[in-house]
Structures are given as C-alpha cells and as structure tokens.
C-alpha cells in the first residue's frame, strides 16, 4: 500500500475526533488495594489503570488511589498490578449518583493458586498479534536468558539454554537469520536497546561478512550486525515479557521483525534467593523490593552471577556474567510517578590457552562491561482529551574488548601500513628503487614517508584486539489522548517523538606491526581502524496512532491506524501501520493488519571500512643478510561507502480469526505474509571489481650485502574486489500460526494448550554473483575474465511445521505443577532453486569493463573456463527430515511459604532419530539434541 493513502485514511479520524465533543457528567473513582487475607494489609505502589483511557496511578501508603474527572455512567476497565500478586482485571460501571469506591484484594502469585499460567497467552484482538509471558511461566520454564523464553511463542522449537554463545532474539524465523535478529527490537521498561554501534568484527569490506574474529562469537550468528546479545540481561527482575509478532504499533520503530517488550518487577517483594544448576552451568541470584520509608518510594535491587563452560572437556573455554541493578519507583503525587533504573553488567567469554596445546597458545576473549541508565515518568493530565504524558531518557554505555591471540603457522606475508592509494613503496622507507634501465619503480607519494612494510615471519604470534566503547542515548515523549463518545465509539490516540543516537568511541581494531594478521586473498589486506573516527548515527522519529473502537450490541469493531516517520542520518522513511478487528456476539473475532516496519542501518553498513590492497611487484624473499631483502609493494585503497544505501523495510500483512469456544477456552488462527526486498547485505558489484596493472620484476643480479638488480619481467592484469553495504537481501516469509487454549479442566486439575505454526521462508540476494574460475595455465589467476550471473540466481527455501502440546497438571493444595511438553515437527524441509548457469555479463580481463555475455560465446577459449565443470545433480534436491517427536518435562513444587524447587528434563526420553539424507546419498543425519536437565531452588525470605 502506498504510505500516502494510509495518511489520508488516518487524518479524517483525527480531525473528526477533535471537532465533536459532548457534554457529560464527571465523577470520581476512589479505592484501596489490600492484600488478600484477614489482616487488611494495604499495598502501596500498586499500579492502578483505567482502561482503555490509559490513566495510570500508583497507590499511596494506605493503599489508596483516586481518579478524577471520569465520565459518569460509563463502563470502564480497571487493572490493578503489583509485583508478586495476581493482576486484577475487572469491569465496573461508574455511577453518576453515588460515590464510586472499590476495595481490591490481591492474591499472592505462586503455585498454590488454582489457576497457574505457564504458557504464553495471546493478547487482545485488534492490536498487534502478540504473546504475553508472565513471571510464573518464566519460573516454571526455568529460563536462563530471554532467548529461552522465546520457545513459548507459537511455532518456536524447544531448545536447550546455551549461554556460551551470544543469545540473539528472532521472531517468526526458522534459521535465526542475523537480519531477523537485527530487526527484532528489545524494549526494557520503555527503553529500546541498541546494537547499532557494535563493531566487534574484522573487515566486513574485505570478507563480505560481519563475523567477529572470535571463533565462539559464532559466525552464523553474526553478532556485530545482528540483534542485542540478551545474555547481559538478568531474568531475575523480569515481571513479564511480551512478544509482538504481528504488526507493531507505530510507537515502536527501528525494527523489521517485531518487538520483545520486557517489564521489570517494581514494588515491595521478599528477598528472593535463587540457585540454578544445568549441565556445565551454575547461576545464583538475589532480588529484593524495598520500601523506602513513608514517602521514599520503592527500590528493587537485584544481582546475579552465572558461569558456564563451553564443553565439559574444555573447561578453559567458558563464559561468566555478573549483573546488578536497581529500580527506584517514586510516587510524587496522584498524577505523577517516575521510575529510575541503573543496571550494570559484565560478561566475559573466554578461552584461555589449552594446557595440552602449548604449540598454538590460542587465547580468545570477549568482554563487555557496561551500564544502562533509564528514567521514565508518567504524568496523569486528564484534561480534555489529553489523559497522560509519558517521557523517558536512556543512556547506555558498553565497553567491549574482543581479543584473539595465537601462535600461528603459515602467517608469513607482506604487511604494510601505507595509507596512500596508488603509491608504491619498499621496505626501505623513503628510498626510491630503480630497475636496471634506470626507471623508478617506486612511487613515493606524500604521506608514505613513515609507512612500514615488511614480510612477516612464518610462525609467530598473531594478535588482534578490538576495543569498542558503544554509546547509546535515547529521549522520548508520548502523549495519550482518549475520548469516549458515549455512543459506543471510543478513540484513543497516541502521539510521540523519539530521538536516538548511537556511536562508538573505542580505540577500534588495533594490532602491532609484528603481530599483524597475515594478508588475505587476492592482495587484500588489513589496516588498523579507530572507531572514534566514525561519526555517530542519529535517528529522529515522530509517530501518531488512533485506536478506534465502536461497540454495537454484543459486537465490537476495532481499528488501530498509525504512521511513523523516521529520519536516520538524513535518510527518511514513512511507515504506515494498521490493525483492524471485528468481534461478533462476543465470540468470534476476525482480524487483519498491514504495516511497514523499518530498521536503521547500523554503523557497519553506514560507515564501512575502506578496502585495502597491497600488491607486491617484487619480493626477494627472506635473506640471511637483511640488507639484501627487498619488497616493493603497490597499495590501492577504495572507499566502500554506499551513499545510496536505503533504510531496510519489511512489509507485513496478516489475517486471523479468534473463536471463544466456552469460558476462557479459545482457538486462534493467524496467517501472515512478510516481504523484505531491500534487506541489508554486503555484496560485490561489477563496480567493485578493479582491474589493475601488475608490473612484476625479477632479480637479474643478486648483490652481496646490498639490494639486487631488478628487471621488468612483464606486466600482468590483476583483479582487486571488495564488498559494499547494500539493500539486496530478499527475505520472504509466509506462515500460519495456531493456538488452541483449552484452559484448565478442574475435574482433572489439568490444562491443555496446543500451539504451533507452519512457516515457509525464502532467502535470496538481488545482486549479481560472480564466477572467478581460474584460467588454465600459468598466471591463470591474473589474466582471466570474470563471469557475471544474473541477480537472485539462487533462492533458498526452508519450510517447517511444528506443533507443541503443553499439558499442565497442578495440585494447588500442595503447590505442585508439572508440565509435559510434546513437540511434533511434522515437516522440516530445505531446498534451493537455481535460475540459470549462463552468464548475463562478463568483466573483461583486457579493460576491466562490463560487457553483455552472448551464450554463443560459452565455448570460446576466453570464457569456457568460467563455467563450473560440475553441476551437482542434487543441488535442487530438497533435504527433508523425518518427523520427530520430543518430550520435555518441567515441574515446580512450593515447599511451605519460603521455598520452591523446579526441575526440568529436555528430550527426556533421549530420542535421537537418525535418517538417511535426502540430498546427499550415503549421509546420515542425527536429529534432536542430547538429554538436558537442571534444577532451580528459590527461597523467599520475608
């Protein structure tokens, strides 16, 4: 849909709302929040909300609250939330004639309750499709990181917790593609987190990948260009997690896949002490919510330590983290409350030298040390349509150091620090070198005087350090307007502004001359890069959204329509979003939505490193007399910046139906379609292939104690190519998610929840690909043409159908809950299609220019070698796994008031099916993972 049409659709709603007003009697609502039981203990700092008007207040020391200026006679929804207590959600009708006073009694949330919710809950219709996961579910699942929680979302596969690798979030993804995780927003207490300034990587320009130099930072995860690593976020202070899979509200930006919204615990709580053990993982945490006197607010403190070993046989390879934080919640008046939090985190991924491998002395470490500051405030205005103002300010700082050192063999090679493109220098600084005809070979341009050049030793220490100091600041304000027209029509409008700034002030990628990395392929080489030279990226955003609700009889129509504008370092994007639903007879809801989501390019893509090439024109090789050593090297430097880089967008559409079967039992179906045609990529284009002259010299006479006499042997043509950021990644997805929540059957004390999804993803790259096959014969890697294949030549697909049945049995009297999760993967299939093996163009070895390729030239002496000699018969054959069924067991038991134990066993029957690969004959593939178990023990000390 054209963004403009959406704007014109929204505007009349906004205007209509402004013009019409209606006289109405105004009333007050007062009340008190008490702890359930006989003692009538008041609860202060309970959050009381009037919905859908979005009025919020917190209770005072007596547990009292007050809302003024509410419409008399209206039916409103009241929500009372308090950490550790079961949320109260109820409808009341405001009387115009008498005092509206209510007392709410809150029940402690624990496993003694009749109804425990240990699965993800679907949210209300009409807004973004989302799953809500509460504290009980997190406890029962015994999650170690936010990533573990994501397996409760429909269609996700069960997985074992693994904190020895970065834990990135992804939504509606089978392969956890880095682009998906990069586009998954993580929002902690209103503050969106950012990985945009993460530059812990080697040269993306030279390699075409955003891999970290550290092996265990997992190349496939591509941490530096993916989402936030959630290992630094302790779960112990998390109250609830909401996963928005569908079309998110216009309030949320800098995302393509969806959002994960985390709410922290706020309020007085007992001291919570927890120990967890998993195979090769230990964790301990403390959490406590304090009341700071009569008027000091509440303070929630938490600290956590975790240690995990990568593999039992490699204890020198491990990860540890430490987090500590506090949230201070303060109620300044009936209409104003704030929350201020500070969290520090320390993470260390480390591989110390293997004591049994003295030869390599491989050491790697990735260290994060940082803090997150966040302040949010809520002002209840309740004047006219304006109900409340929320504001927030966030400042995050992360100091990272990634280091890898190793005694490397075959690490010899030409290394240069020359930063002048086109210059030719030797290992004798400032000294011109001539051939035997008296012609100068060197080209000592200004700036090359101090350049270092050497042929590094073969076996030596190679060490790269990457220092990053990531700064992220965010300021935001959101206004909520609400109007009830008293004719069944209600409007809620939100509007806001958001400013984000990301930068990196680190020393960057550095190394010493002696420990520099050895040169790459085809003359490509590395240089030091200081990150403090890279500009900051700034994002400014505005958004507005109208939630329109109309009730007629027992039916309700809901439309939420919004638009978001982002300006990212001068690049603009307008993203309209809409969700609509109609509920008939309070039973059947039909819903649909469409929206565009946009993700800012991170610093990797905005400011790529230059491409460096060092091409030796002559190398004497090592000599016993260093005075005889001579290396002459030509340096070429190319900028990889792409001024035409656009903001990547994802087009999301979905439709669904929710059927309330009886009571709270419901069935939901959601079909979705997502298309991203301009995802971020690192690609080579015909313009990033440079044909350069390579004059090669040979020694005609060796001279004892001095440099040899050189003669031009010949001039060849060499290719230099590199990668540039671009918008060519294509990701298309479709799927069908289903959830059947049968709730609890009291007679058997058992609840049933069936969920799952069918998903199909395709990946391709809308850019040219190249054949660089070597021309047979001498110097074939120099004098050859480059074949150019058409864009989107290879399309890869993945398809999966996963169904998960969670059966939860609970005995409230003894505080016992057991869940059996059975997951059937009925279909798991991947395959690729190839469009053509014929070239569309070629880049000439004569002049470096691009020409059309006529298929008639295929057998020509100049081109035949560019065609791959073997086209594997099986390249389009699908790999189809056999259906699998795995069982996980989790159980939780309360022991008295003060203690709780939980246990889980994943893949409890140790099922590891093996099947014969359908793509590679004779290959057997083992599915599933090893049995994995653990337990948590929690003490609540009052």
């Amino acid at each position: 849909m054209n963004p403009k049409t959406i704007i014109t659709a929204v505007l009349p709603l906004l205007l209509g709302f402004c013009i019409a007003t209606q006289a109405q009697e105004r009333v007050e609502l007062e009340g008190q929040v008490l702890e359930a039981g006989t003692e009538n203990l008041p609860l202060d700092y309970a959050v009381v909300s009037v919905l859908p008007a979005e009025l919020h207040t917190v209770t005072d020391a007596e547990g009292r609250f007050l809302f003024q200026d509410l419409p008399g006679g209206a039916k409103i929804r009241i929500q009372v939330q308090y950490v550790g207590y079961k949320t109260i959600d109820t409808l009341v009708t405001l009387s115009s004639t008498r005092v509206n006073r209510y007392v709410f009694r809150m029940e402690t949330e624990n496993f003694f309750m009749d109804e425990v919710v240990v699965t993800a809950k679907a949210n209300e219709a009409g807004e973004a499709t989302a799953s809500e996961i509460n504290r009980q579910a997190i406890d029962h699942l015994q999650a170690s990181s936010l990533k573990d929680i994501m397996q409760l979302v429909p269609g996700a596969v069960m997985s074992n917790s693994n904190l020895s690798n970065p834990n990135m979030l992804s939504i509606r993804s089978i392969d956890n593609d880095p682009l998906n995780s990069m586009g998954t927003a993580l929002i902690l207490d209103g503050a969106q987190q950012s990985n945009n300034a993460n530059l812990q990587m080697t040269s993306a320009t030279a390699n075409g990948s955003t891999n970290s130099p550290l092996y265990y930072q997992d190349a496939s995860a591509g941490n530096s260009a993916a989402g936030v690593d959630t290992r630094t976020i302790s779960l112990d202070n998390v109250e609830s997690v909401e996963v928005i899979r569908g079309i998110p509200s216009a309030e949320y930006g800098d995302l393509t896949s969806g959002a994960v919204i985390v709410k922290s615990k706020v309020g007085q709580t007992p001291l919570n002490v927890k120990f967890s053990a998993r195979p090769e993982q230990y964790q301990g945490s403390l959490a406590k919510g304090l009341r700071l006197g009569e008027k000091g607010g509440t303070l929630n403190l938490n600290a956590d330590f975790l240690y995990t070993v990568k593999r039992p046989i490699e204890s020198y390879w491990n990860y540890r983290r430490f987090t500590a934080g506090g949230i201070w919640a303060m109620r300044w008046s009936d209409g104003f409350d704030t929350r201020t939090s500070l969290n520090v985190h320390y993470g260390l991924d480390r591989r110390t030298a293997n004591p049994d491998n003295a030869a390599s002395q491989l050491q790697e470490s990735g260290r994060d040390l940082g803090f997150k500051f966040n302040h949010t405030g809520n002002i209840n205005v309740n004047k006219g349509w304006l109900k409340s103002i929320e504001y927030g300010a966030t400042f995050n700082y992360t100091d990272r150091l990634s280091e890898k050192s190793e005694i490397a063999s075959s690490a010899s090679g030409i290394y240069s620090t020359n930063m002048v493109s086109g210059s030719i220098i030797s290992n004798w600084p400032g000294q011109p070198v001539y051939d035997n005809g008296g012609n100068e070979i060197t080209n000592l341009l200004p700036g090359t005087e101090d350049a270092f050049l050497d042929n590094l030793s073969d076996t030596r220490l190679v060490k790269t350090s990457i220092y990053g100091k990531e700064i992220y600041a965010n300021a935001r304000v959101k206004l909520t307007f609400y109007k009830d027209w008293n004719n069944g029509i209600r409007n809620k409008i939100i509007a806001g502004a958001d400013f984000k700034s990301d930068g990196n002030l680190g020393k960057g990628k550095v190394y010493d001359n002696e420990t520099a990395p050895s040169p790459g392929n085809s003359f490509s080489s590395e240089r030091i890069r200081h990150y403090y030279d890279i500009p900051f990226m700034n994002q400014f955003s505005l958004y507005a959204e109208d939630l329109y609700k109309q009730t007629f009889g027992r039916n309700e129509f809901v439309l939420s329509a919004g638009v978001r504008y982002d300006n990212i370092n001068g690049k603009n994007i307008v993203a309209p979003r809409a969700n609509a639903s109609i509920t008939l007879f309070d039973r059947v809801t039909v819903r649909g939505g469409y929206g565009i989501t946009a993700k800012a390019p991170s610093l990797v893509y905005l400011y790529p490193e230059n491409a460096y090439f060092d091409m030796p024109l002559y190398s004497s090789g090592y000599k016993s007399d260093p005075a005889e050593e001579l290396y002459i090297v030509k340096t070429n430097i190319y900028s990889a910046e792409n001024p035409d880089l656009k903001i990547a967008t994802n087009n999301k559409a979905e439709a669904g139906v929710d059927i309330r079967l009886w009571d709270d039992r419901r069935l939901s179906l959601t079909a979705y379609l997502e298309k991203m045609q301009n995802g971020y990529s690192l690609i080579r284009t015909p313009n990033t292939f440079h044909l350069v002259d390579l004059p090669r010299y040979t020694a005609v006479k060796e001279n004892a104690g001095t440099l040899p006499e050189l003669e031009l042997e010949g001039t060849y043509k060499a290719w230099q190519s590199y990668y540039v950021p671009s918008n060519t990644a294509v990701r298309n997805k479709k799927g069908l998610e289903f959830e059947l929540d049968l709730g609890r059957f009291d007679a058997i004390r058992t609840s049933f929840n069936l969920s799952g999804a069918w998903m199909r993803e395709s990946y391709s790259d809308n850019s040219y690909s190249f054949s660089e096959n070597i021309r047979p014969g001498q110097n074939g890697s120099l004098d050859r043409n480059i074949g150019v294949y058409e864009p989107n030549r290879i399309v890869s697909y993945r398809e999966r159908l996963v169904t998960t049945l969670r059966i939860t049995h609970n005995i409230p009297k003894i505080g016992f809950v057991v869940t059996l999760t059975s997951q059937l993967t009925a279909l798991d299939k991947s395959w690729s299609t190839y469009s053509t093996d014929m070239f569309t163009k070629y880049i000439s070895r004569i002049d470096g220019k691009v020409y059309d390729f006529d298929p008639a030239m295929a057998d020509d002496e100049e081109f035949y070698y560019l065609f791959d000699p073997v086209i594997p018969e099986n390249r389009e054959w699908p790999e189809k796994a056999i259906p699998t069924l795995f069982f996980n067991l989790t159980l939780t038991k309360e022991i008295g008031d003060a203690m709780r134990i939980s246990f889980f066993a994943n893949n409890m029957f140790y099922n590891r099916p093996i099947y014969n690969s359908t793509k590679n004959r004779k290959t057997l593939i083992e599915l599933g993972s090893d049995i994995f178990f653990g337990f948590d023990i929690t003490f609540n000390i009052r």
Partner: protein
Amino acid sequence: MPAVLFSCTKTPDSTSTVTATVKLEAAEEVTIPDDAVFTVTATNFDTKQEIDVQAENMTAVFAGLVPGRYTFMTSFQVTENATTTIYSGSISNTNILEDTELTMTISVTESASLVMKELYYNASKTSAGKPYMKEQFYEIYNNGEETVYVDGLCFGNLMPENATGKANYDWGSQYPLTDYVFFGRIMQVPGTPGVDKKYPLNPGESIILCQYATDHTVPELNPDSIDLSSGEFEWYEPTNTNQTDQPAINLKMAFPINPSSPYKIWNNTSNGPALAMFFPVEEFSIDKMATDKNNGVSISYPIPVSIILDAVEAIKDETQVQNKRVPTSLDAGYIWVTDDNGEPAIQVGKSIVRKVLETTEDGRVILQDTNNTTEDFELKTREIRRYGAKVPSWNTWAN
C-alpha cells in the same frame, strides 16, 4: 578395550588352527614366465606377524594359521634390457576363520627408468611445536640407462586424499578400479612430453618438486628445517603474498583445470597420500574428468594404469590398509611413517626413501623397484639428493 574382551571369549585353543590355500592366477593377457618363483607373504592384521610361503604349482598353502584377518601379497620381477617387468598380486584383509581357498590375480607392470626416489609428505614441526608443511618435497630419479626428458611430466595425488574408509567414491562403470587411478590434483612440469626437450635428466640425476623451493632454515621460516633453494620445481600462485617466487621453475596445475579460486599452497596430507606420476598422452580436458556418482560434487581425473610410471601408496597406519588407492599392479604394498618408537606419526620430519638395489662401477646408484612399497621403501630423516644423486645441468640456481 572391547576388542580384547571379545577375543578372550572367542580365542580358540591352540589345536584349532586353520589352513589358507592361495591360488595364484594370471590376469587376462598376462603370461607368467615358467621360471617365476612367487613367495607369498601373509600378514596377520592384529599381531602383524608375517608368514612367507613359496608357491608350488602356483599354489601357496598356509597351514597352522591362527584364525584372524590376513593380507596376502606377492611379487616377482624379471629385468631385461634395463626394463624390469614385475608380476604381483595381493588380497587385502580377508577373514580366515576356517580352512579357506583364495584366488590371487597376478597382474603385470613394467618399471620405467623414472622412479620416485624420496617422498617427503610427512612434514615437521617448528621449535614452537606448530606444523611446518612448507618444506614438503618429492624427489624423482632417473634409475635407468638413458636420458629422459621430464618436460610435461605429471605428478599428483590420488583420491581420496586421505585413505579413510568414508570416502566411497563411485566414478562410474567406464572406469574399472583395476585399470584406472583417480587423481585429485596434478602438478605438471611445463612443456609437452616428447616434443619439448628443455629439461633432460641423465641417469643418476634427480629433480625435486617442492611446495616452496626456498631456504627454509632462515629465522623467519623454520631454522630446524632444510634448504630447498636448489629445488628444480615449485608451486607458486601469483596472487599469494604469503610466498615469494623463487628461482625454481614454476609448476603448472593441470588438474583441477579451472578451480573456482586460486590454489595458494601445494599441500599433500601428512597422513599419507597416494602419489603417482605419468607423461600425459593427450591434453587435459574438462570433458575427461570423472564426477562422483554418490555426492555429485567430487571430481577426479582418471588416468589409465598403463601409462603410470610409478605409484606409491602411503597411508596413516595399519587401519587404512584396506582403503588402498593404488591398484596392486602398480603397488602391491604400502607404507606409513612411524616415529622413533615405531608408532605411526605425522610431522616428524621423515621421508619414505627407495632402497638401494646396487651401485654401478662409476658410483651411480640403482634403486630397487619391485612395485611393492612395503619392500622397496624405508623411512629416513628427510634429505635431498641422498646417495649422491646429481643436479641436472640446467639447474643454474643450485649453487
């Protein structure tokens, strides 16, 4: 050790030995001379015990064998007019659990005057304990009476690179495994065989094919290594800045013909490659490659056994005997490198070296070539041009 436990329960008492009768049979179109004397060697897989039995009426009877897995080998050679004709056969790893009759096919090869003299694939370690592969070399010697021109000579390793049981290639029925060897990589001396005469090799002279023909003993490389700067040939890829082009003549890579990326370093596995050499009789062509029918991806270049000059089967240890890549007609045996304690070892600086058969009156060494690596080769610390092998006249850079 489960194997021990298993044998404990199954060990027969001393009276229950078995007899293996090995019948020797000439392959098609092979005529075995009447005066041929075949001594058949049986090797027990577990104990490594060897038993020699001389065949009578082309039949060798091994009585009193302890039941187990055995390998049988034999070879016999006749030398006439400087050409040696070798008759050989083998049966690998057969279970002899009861009285058994086996048939061994005897095939024939003619030994050429060019032989592999010393093959140094084992490589070494630096003083820091890192593998040092760059000093790999292969010495080829003129063992005959006539000058041979090595222009266009091809040398390479056979598939699979490692003699592991997993690589079950199926190159197609047009290539019987007894008639072809399957190269994974072929390096070629520049020139066309029979046409170009730039590189003559006289009797008693050798050429050295190096991964990197430089003086490896410089401090920047590996002081514990050897000086290969006198090597005649080396592999040099012009886009590889890790290596410097040396005076040695650059080899050509004949196969793979058009690899998708530059082949930077010419490495052979330290675990034991199967190496073979030949003079090509036609141009290398993409159409003549073979593709593995199993995985559809692996490629090899089949060369008929009839044109192979010399082939050597080197393996990692005794467990790989059954995975031999070289047909028996070219090499009835095999070899692996061991350390000083006799344990199979990689990167210990040892070559496999052809044994000396005799020394002529003018001091020239004649090497033993019975097409049986087990018999013909021994292990020695790496050294170039041992036994006084001479440098060819055209090598001006060797001092």
